């Protein structure tokens, strides 16, 4: 076997084309750098999305499957399991790792919830003693959030909340009826609900790189990607401007194996394998930018061992893989009497909630650190696989025709048929999404025994929730019950108790992996500096969620985009100064 050397040398090679990689490609190419982008998956264009497909066009009515864990029409290629690309867990650990393998990575089908971190979120250790502070502040990142808002587009409302800073917002869509009803109930128990902040265009953007992006047509199918480029995905928003510069070379089906280094320890490029032909390549570049998703980038670094970097590249501190975090989560559903016998109307709206609850108890005393936000759903959505499943648990609420109570749910026949009609749109759901604490002992490492089908050593996870997270999730359920009770609703199941850790989702399952190449000023305790630059090899950068020091109760992608923009400007600046 021969390793083919790529003849031309690039200024930068980016590994991965998701949020971080896409943003780096845009900013670096526009800054004049010649960029090669390696992506392990195939090409994807959201114009090929499953827009407007009906459930009945699918023989499984859109059911989820191993290949499409979020339903058949979902745009993702990849999932919780990928053939030939295993990962493992240490005994007692059950980390779930979701991976995309396609141009744009997980940005094709993500939830578009686009939240800025607030000032507190960068200095949590100073506030409660747990984890670490970031080496940068909200003021350092705010100009980049602004740039992302303007370039990508986001709707929201100006609320003036200190730790949920306002952005540069397009107008938010009006709430749906059931959302107003929940809002009324939530407010009555002291829980706020405000317009959500999603990267969906409710108005056209007025800059030149957005002319191909139509405003949203409210089909609520963002998870299928968007054929009119109305929401954010890397292929819709970041690849076109990068390509327009003529400086971008996308190399697809290219699985990076390791970052190569010279005798001084500086990176020289990346070796990769073509996933279709099996041919091995090496590509030279002045700068290497990793954006393969947090854990994949950590894996690449740990697999890039050399005499100068015996513990893996950028890992003299031994923190690579450590301080792994995922968001906490738990869910409740309820049937709401006021929503029974609804009035038919097109309730689709955007692909996601129109209202949400930001963390509202920063100042109150509580038995857990950090906070959570609440996401809501419900309404007259397109019936698909699993439609009103388990109705026997809740149709009792309708009573008998003569007004007497029903002795049991379930049933069959005419009454049941009518029950479905009457209860359609009357079930709501809510999910808490909370901040976990960064611990050194929650980590991914190289599994000593296992390789994937390309012969690349795979990751092994070790992750356990602490009481901090478990008590937080308990509080989520208390809040859910309060809101549901205030609406006179009936929970579809009992709030989970201590025996099940209050229903906390397994780590990884909220798909916000971050923290495994954390940033800091001290090279002994961090992998990269505040410009996402490796302490140990100054021409290596990590621009996915890896450099996050703490999590915030906010979904990570807006911050990944802002930090990637900032790091890329820094790279251009340093290249101009001949420091790279």
């Amino acid at each position, binding site marked *: 076997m021969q390793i083919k050397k*790529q003849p031309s040398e690039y200024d930068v090679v980016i590994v991965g084309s998701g949020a971080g990689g896409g943003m780096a490609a845009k900013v670096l190419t526009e800054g004049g750098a010649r960029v090669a982008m390696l992506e392990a998956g*195939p*090409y*994807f*264009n959201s*114009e090929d999305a*499953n827009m*407007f497909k*009906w459930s*009945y066009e699918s*023989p*499984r*009515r859109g*059911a989820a499957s191993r290949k499409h864990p979020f339903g*058949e*029409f979902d*745009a993702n290629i990849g999932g919780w399991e990928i053939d030939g690309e295993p990962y493992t867990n240490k005994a007692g650990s059950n980390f779930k790792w979701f991976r995309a393998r396609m141009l744009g990575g997980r940005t094709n089908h993500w939830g578009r919830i686009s939240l800025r971190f607030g000032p507190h979120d960068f200095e949590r250790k100073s506030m409660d003693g747990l984890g670490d502070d970031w080496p940068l502040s909200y003021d350092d990142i705010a100009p980049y959030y602004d740039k992302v808002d303007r370039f990508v587009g986001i709707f929201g409302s100006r609320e003036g909340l200190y730790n949920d800073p306002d952005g540069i917002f397009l107008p938010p869509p*009006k*709430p*749906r*009826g059931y959302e*107003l009803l929940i*809002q009324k109930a939530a407010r009555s128990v002291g829980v706020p609900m405000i317009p959500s902040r999603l990267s969906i265009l409710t108005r056209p953007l007025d800059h030149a790189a957005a002319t*191909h992006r*139509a405003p949203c*047509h*409210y*089909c*609520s199918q963002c998870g299928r990607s968007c054929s*009119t480029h109305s929401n954010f995905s890397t292929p819709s928003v970041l690849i076109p401007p990068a390509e327009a510069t003529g400086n971008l070379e996308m190399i*697809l*089906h290219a699985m990076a194996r390791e970052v190569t280094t010279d005798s001084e320890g500086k990176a020289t490029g990346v070796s990769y394998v073509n996933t279709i032909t099996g041919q091995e390549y090496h590509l030279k570049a002045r700068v290497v930018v990793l954006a393969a998703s947090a854990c994949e980038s950590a894996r690449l670094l740990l697999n890039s061992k050399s005499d100068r970097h015996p513990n893996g590249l950028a890992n003299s501190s031994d923190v690579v893989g450590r301080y792994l975090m995922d968001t906490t989560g738990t869910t409740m559903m309820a049937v709401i009497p*006021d*929503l029974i016998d609804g*009035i038919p*109307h*097109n*309730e*689709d709206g955007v692909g996601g909630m129109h209202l949400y609850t930001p963390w509202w108890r920063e100042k109150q005393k509580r038995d857990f650190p950090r906070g959570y936000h609440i996401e809501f759903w419900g309404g*007259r*959505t397109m*019936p*698909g*696989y*699993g*439609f009103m*499943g388990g*109705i*026997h648990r809740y149709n009792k609420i309708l009573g008998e025709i003569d007004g007497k109570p029903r002795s*049991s*749910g*379930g*049933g069959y*026949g*005419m009454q*049941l*048929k009518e029950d*479905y*009609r009457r209860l*359609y749109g009357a079930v709501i759901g809510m999910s808490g999404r909370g901040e976990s604490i960064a611990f050194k002992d929650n980590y991914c490492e190289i599994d000593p025994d296992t390789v994937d089908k390309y012969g690349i050593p795979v990751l092994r996870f070790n992750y356990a929730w602490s009481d901090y997270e478990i008590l937080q999730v308990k509080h989520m359920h208390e809040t859910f019950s309060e809101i549901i009770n205030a609406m006179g609703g009936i929970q579809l199941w009992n709030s989970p108790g201590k025996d099940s850790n209050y229903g906390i989702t397994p780590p990884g399952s909220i798909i916000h992996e971050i923290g495994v190449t954390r940033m800091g000023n001290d090279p002994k305790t961090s992998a990269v500096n505040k410009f996402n630059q490796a302490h140990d090899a100054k021409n290596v950068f990590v621009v996915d969620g890896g450099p996050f020091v703490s999590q915030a109760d906010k979904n990570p992608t807006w911050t990944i985009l802002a930090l990637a923009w900032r790091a890329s400007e820094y790279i251009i600046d340093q290249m101009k100064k001949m420091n790279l």
Partner: protein
Amino acid sequence: MKKDNKHTENNKRQISRRDSLKYITLGTISVAYLAGCSTPEEIEDKIPKVKKNYPGISEEDIALMKQKFFTDHERETVRQLANLIIPADNRSGNAEDAGVVPFIEFMMLDKPENQTKMRGGLKWMDFESLSRYEKEFIKCSEEEQQQILDDIAYPDTARPEFSQGVSFFNIFRDYVATGFWSSKTGINDLPYEGNMANVWSGAPQEWLDRLSVSYDS
């Protein structure tokens, strides 16, 4: 070095607002066009060849749609049970009319892990009717069938000795519901009025009034 350069050409196809509206119309037409199909062959004929990387009906699905899981006896049991669960009325047809039987059969092949529950449950129905009426479920009169269902369709009050029947019926009811309500018939019946290009300007006033909520507070 071999590179996949298709993307470059594809990305030039940046679409304007007008193009996107054209796309939307096209999308709607093709949906209407497909809606009348029910057999796998018809669907296969009308669906444009699956694009590379395009989620949706695959070659494997088409192969599955041609396979059988149920015996004729089981399929007839499924048909009768499904129609007892969702009968026809003046608003829409019954489960069978909405294609529930082939849907359940497909799901058995698609998610084989559920096969035993289904097969065993159908068998349970037959054994129950045999012991009560000395005939298989499908040979029973509707009244006799309903007597069995009355014992297993109401989980909160069912007697413990019927617990297996109750479990089966809960699952079966859910299959019938998905199959019926996600069909074109079911969607029109509910009705679900979305899945189209729309301008969302809020919920209808009538609905807001019913909920005693408004956009002003």
